[in-house]
């Protein structure tokens, strides 16, 4: 609109607003051609036909984990809790495990997948997890054929005695993924590593 025209238009708008606020009919209402679009109004019967969604589609469980940059390509087994309340671990060192009491990968919340760093004699599936860089792609195949893709955002090494349960498992609705394995020094008396290595990943 040219600047010379704006003054009168502004004044007109203010007058309309004042008229409306003073109880007069708004211009938009008094001039239907300029306001309400002409549309077919459904009948009252049609208005009463609202139905809430009754079907809930769950995100399928993970069946395979792939991290091409680390040469990881493994089946995924389910994991629960052990009697002492700690998380169960995969039965085989070349297979990853998903914590089944938590979210499934790709649904809201932190999904957690574990893998061994080694066996008694050789490397485990997550032997190279510590080498993953920010941006490394992680793919999780699900039972229904769908794939959830994530990018690693950071890697942390933490003492097991100060494991950040909150940051790994605690519920938010962010659809994230955490990959967990062992690292640090090996406690030969206890037969376990003292640290955990955690990869935090977000949807790609």
């Amino acid at each position, binding site marked *: 609109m040219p600047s010379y025209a*704006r003054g009168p238009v502004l004044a007109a708008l203010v007058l309309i607003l004042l008229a409306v606020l003073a109880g007069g009919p708004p211009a*938009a209402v008094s001039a239907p051609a300029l306001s309400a679009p002409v549309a077919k*109004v459904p009948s009252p019967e049609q208005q009463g036909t609202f139905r809430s969604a009754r079907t*809930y589609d769950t995100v399928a469980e993970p069946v395979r984990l792939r991290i091409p940059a680390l040469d990881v390509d493994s089946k995924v087994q389910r994991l629960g809790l052990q009697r002492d309340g700690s*998380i169960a671990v995969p039965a085989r060192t070349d297979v990853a495990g998903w914590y089944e009491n938590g979210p499934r990968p790709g649904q*809201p919340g932190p999904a957690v997948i574990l893998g061994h760093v080694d066996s008694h004699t050789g490397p485990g599936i997550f032997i190279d997890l510590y080498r993953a860089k920010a941006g490394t792609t992680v793919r999780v195949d699900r039972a229904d054929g769908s794939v959830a893709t994530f990018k690693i955002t950071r890697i942390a090494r933490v*003492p097991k005695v100060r494991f950040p349960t909150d940051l790994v498992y605690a519920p938010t609705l962010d659809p994230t993924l955490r990959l967990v394995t062992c690292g640090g020094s*090996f406690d030969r008396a206890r*037969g376990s590593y003292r640290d*955990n290595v955690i990869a935090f990943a977000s949807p790609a």
Partner: protein
Amino acid sequence: MRHMPIPGHGRIWRALPLLCAGLLLLLPGTAPAAHRGPSTAPAAHQEPSAAPATHRAPATPSAPDLAIQFEALLGQHSVLAADLMRSRIRGDDDFVQSANAALGKNTTAMTTLIGQLFGKPTADKFGPMWSQHIVELFAYAGALAAHDAEALDDARAELVEYEQELGDFFADASKGRLPRSAARAAVVQHVGHLTEQADAYAAKDYPTADSLYRMGYRHTYDLGLTLANALLPTGDADTLKQPLWRLRSQLGKLLAEHAALVEDLTRAAVTRSPDFAASGQMINGNTRDLAAAVDSLFGPAAARQFQALWGDHVEQLVAYATATAGGDQAKQAQAKAALAGIETRTAAFLNGATGRRMSSAELEAALQQHDLMLLKHADAYAAKDYATAHDVAYDTYQEMFDLARTMADAFGATVAARLPKGGAQTGYGGMAAVVEQR
């Protein structure tokens, strides 16, 4: 196509809201809600009068508390601004009240919060700038309603200017933590969602309009977190990243949206508006998202149970609104009775899911209060008491946001109690010589 701004070209238009605001104050009985007496103070700072003890806001809110309230207010702004634009396009006779709600309470509450969080000078700049962008959105909707291409171009050009100014304002306030380009992009996206949903609504493409409506709500709500992260001291920003605070924010987003979308649907039912069916799909999307949240916390079986209860709740609210529109008192009573049963069952479900961390009685009272407010909203709308309808809508949104916080705390504690203890024993030492050297 957007016009490039001409320096100084928009000044006279920018004076419009200030001029209008000044004139509004001169008119007896027409002062915006924010300037009225204490009874209409911003809802964000009110204790809900009938709210059960389960979801009272903290007496002295911390900076993170204020920050998530800021998120909620920004989300509410998106809903109010979109509703204002749609109201203008429809030519509703209540659009002035909508404007008052959007321009008054919400902006004042946000400005107050910004003052508390980031200081008075920031708030003093924010308030007028924010009001101006709302007026331009209103002008855009007016141009759409009038099929006035020239006015539409003018409004677009003004909005481009405000997008840049608002973006720069946020970037400057962050002292470099929020890049100028990112700040501008966030504001551009916000305005884009609102104008595009208005375009689609005016073209009667209601599914597209509603998809953008929800997208705009979520984006603007999350913009609050982006701004808080950039403008708050690092310690407070870190607190907002903690899981419990994320859950409070995220559940608040879904449950407050539920309130807004139910009201949109019952408004469409009462006024027999052609966007009724699309509005129904919109709330179904929200119900699915809520069920997905329940799934993440308590598993798929609980999610299905919750979805059935929540779906019943929405259906009965719509049934009540439809009966109200048709003057059918028997059906109104039937819907009310059904709602009472759903309140009891939903309270029992949540009590069980949270291991009795939430009392059934208090939950039932909270859900009853929620339903009463929604019924009152439908009644007021049907009676053309638009001021009451908009006041109730505003308070219902805040009420659900507050209830979400209580739920998030109970849900978080319930899940935390059953999380794995300690670290994972994922190594046997066969490669210790290598692993220890890393």
